[in-house]
């Protein structure tokens, strides 16, 4: 105890939360690009931005929880590819649409729980387990499907075809509801809080009766559930399913979680942040087209954005005296 705890209470006032920062950035982007080209903020474009990326945000919810617990998952992109294919295959095979939506969710939870078990009980680092699983899922998917696209999906399978009140596409509504539910769960249940506890101070958490292994396993299972939901949103968007692994999806999802303020140093971050980050990243991608910036720079801008967020987070933590 080297007296680091003594801080002016005033310091709290400077701590603008990551969520507000992101919301502000989104608004600023909308305003600036909207001034350059008003079509950017037209309902239709906003729908495009949100609809096309709802699945990323949903996957980032689970990823945020995994990262808060001090782990990482790089197999999520492959898993979503596999689950989307499963969903489409079932739908085409004539299963009831509801089952075609549900099975991938259950399957996702199961696959991730299995990975979680390897991490939690056998002590294999999550990056190793998920790296191995990435290859297995990806290779397995190609072996199984040979890359044949799934088409002729039944009517009523596509979630993206419906809108609430005529303006909010169902996948976007799902994203909002899931974010709210996950945020509520993380805030208002013992299990949800235990995640923060584990990330914040593993030893203290143990003394409060929060078992590491059980919590990690639970986190992975939940992450798998969200990956399944993301896969359903992914699969039900277009009239064909590609039945391949979406390129670099895991990276996009991790980026959303990190930019959303989830700290690998543990204990902080909310899923509201990760969803906002997913929206922000999507909006930036769209805005590059609108303001005619060479798309070659898109990835560089993304990288710079992650870096800026991470540095801002370090700075914020230092100000609050949470490290050093």
């Amino acid at each position, binding site marked *: 105890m080297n007296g680091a705890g003594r801080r002016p209470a005033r310091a709290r006032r400077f701590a603008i939360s990551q969520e507000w920062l992101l919301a502000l950035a989104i608004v600023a982007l909308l305003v600036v690009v909207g001034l350059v080209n008003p079509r950017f903020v037209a309902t239709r474009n906003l729908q495009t931005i949100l609809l096309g990326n709802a699945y990323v945000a949903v996957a980032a919810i689970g990823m945020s929880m995994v990262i808060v617990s001090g782990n*990482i998952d*790089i197999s999520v992109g492959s898993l979503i590819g596999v689950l989307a294919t499963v969903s489409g295959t079932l739908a085409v095979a004539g299963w009831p649409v509801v089952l075609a939506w549900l099975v991938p969710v259950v399957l996702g939870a199961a696959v991730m729980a299995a990975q979680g078990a*390897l991490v939690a009980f*056998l*002590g*294999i*680092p999550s*990056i*190793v*387990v998920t*790296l*191995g*699983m*990435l*290859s*297995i899922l*990806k*290779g*397995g998917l*190609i*072996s199984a499907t040979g890359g044949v696209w799934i088409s002729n999906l039944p009517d009523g399978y596509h979630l993206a075809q419906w809108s609430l009140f005529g303006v909010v596409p169902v996948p976007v509504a799902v994203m909002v509801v899931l974010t709210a539910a996950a945020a509520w769960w993380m805030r208002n249940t013992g299990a949800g809080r235990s995640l923060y506890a584990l990330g914040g101070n593993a030893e203290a958490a143990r003394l409060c009766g929060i078992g590491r292994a059980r919590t990690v396993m639970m986190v992975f299972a939940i992450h798998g559930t969200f990956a399944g939901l993301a896969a359903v949103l992914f699969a039900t968007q277009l009239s064909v399913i590609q039945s391949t692994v979406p390129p670099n999806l895991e*990276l996009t999802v*991790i*980026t959303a979680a*990190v930019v959303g303020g989830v700290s*690998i*140093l543990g204990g902080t971050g909310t899923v509201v942040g990760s969803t906002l980050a997913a929206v922000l990243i999507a909006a930036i991608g769209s805005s590059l087209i609108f303001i005619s910036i*060479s798309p*070659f*720079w*898109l*990835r*560089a*801008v*993304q*990288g*710079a954005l*992650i*870096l800026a967020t*991470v*540095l801002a987070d*370090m700075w914020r933590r230092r100000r609050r005296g949470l*490290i*050093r």
Partner: protein
Amino acid sequence: MTAWPLKLPAHEAVLAAILVLALALLAVLSDRFFTLDNLLNQGLLMTEVGLIAMPMTFVIITGGIDLSVGSALGMCAILLGYSWHNWGFPLPLAIGFALAAGAAGGFVNGWVITRLGVPPLIMTIATLALYRGLAEGISQAHSVRNYPPWFAALGQGTLFGVPAQLWVLVVAIVLFGVVLARTTFGRALRAIGHSETAARFSGLPVDRIKLAVYTASGFMAGLAAWIFVSRVGTTRSDMGMGVELDVIAAVVLGGTSIFGGTGTIVGTVLGLALIQLLKDGLSLTGVKGDATIVVIGTVLILSILVSNFAERRRESGRMPPAPAPRPTTEKGRNEP
């Protein structure tokens, strides 16, 4: 694998055993597999990944990770080609420039990680996107070709009957292996990986060492870029995409602990060889690419599982006798 001899083998031994087994099996399945020609050729094909795996072993031993190497490779390749073709650098200077750019890229990672305390995973995810973005942005998707013939020597030529770049890899393996096993630097790496605080309190220049390791990682990505460009005779901004995962898989398979502290270059080389020969051998016996990556993913998880299990057995087997109280002896007698 149930009846282990009295002494449970270390991870490297397990790996070597798997490798020998795989070699034997594949040699039986395909007569084209176990030939000098093929093995040399496989060595050639794994050179780029192998070169990057050397500093990656160091990075992971210090408890860090570098996900940006694939992108750094792409960035260096583009800078090599671009500085030569578009900015009029003489080719040797362009090569030097690419190597320097790689080192600089690694240095930026190391600087932010050590000075600002950003976790390596996050920092290198950021630069993974950033360096690839720079490669794409600078090249504007143009590739550079028509290198002079002498440039191909490194990637396509041979020296004493062995592919030229394989010599580079061998030198790198020996160099990194000796540095890790025999020098103060190698010792410091392990100390940092096991306990950064204790290393700091022992007067080791922790930050400088980590900075050096990340810089080396970037530099080797630059070297790999040079060899890659020389081998294929063209420069593209998507070069080296996904290499980081191949490299990490080899290093981790080689027994380097992702938590830091333990790991050997021998292990990494075994890991590299196992992955490369599995890919090759399976392909020769008619297994397709998609099934091969499933096999490799499974081998990765299983080998870590087995050696974790072995480690536990050893720990629990050794625990009681080791520090048992002994009578006060003068001069620590060596009791086995």
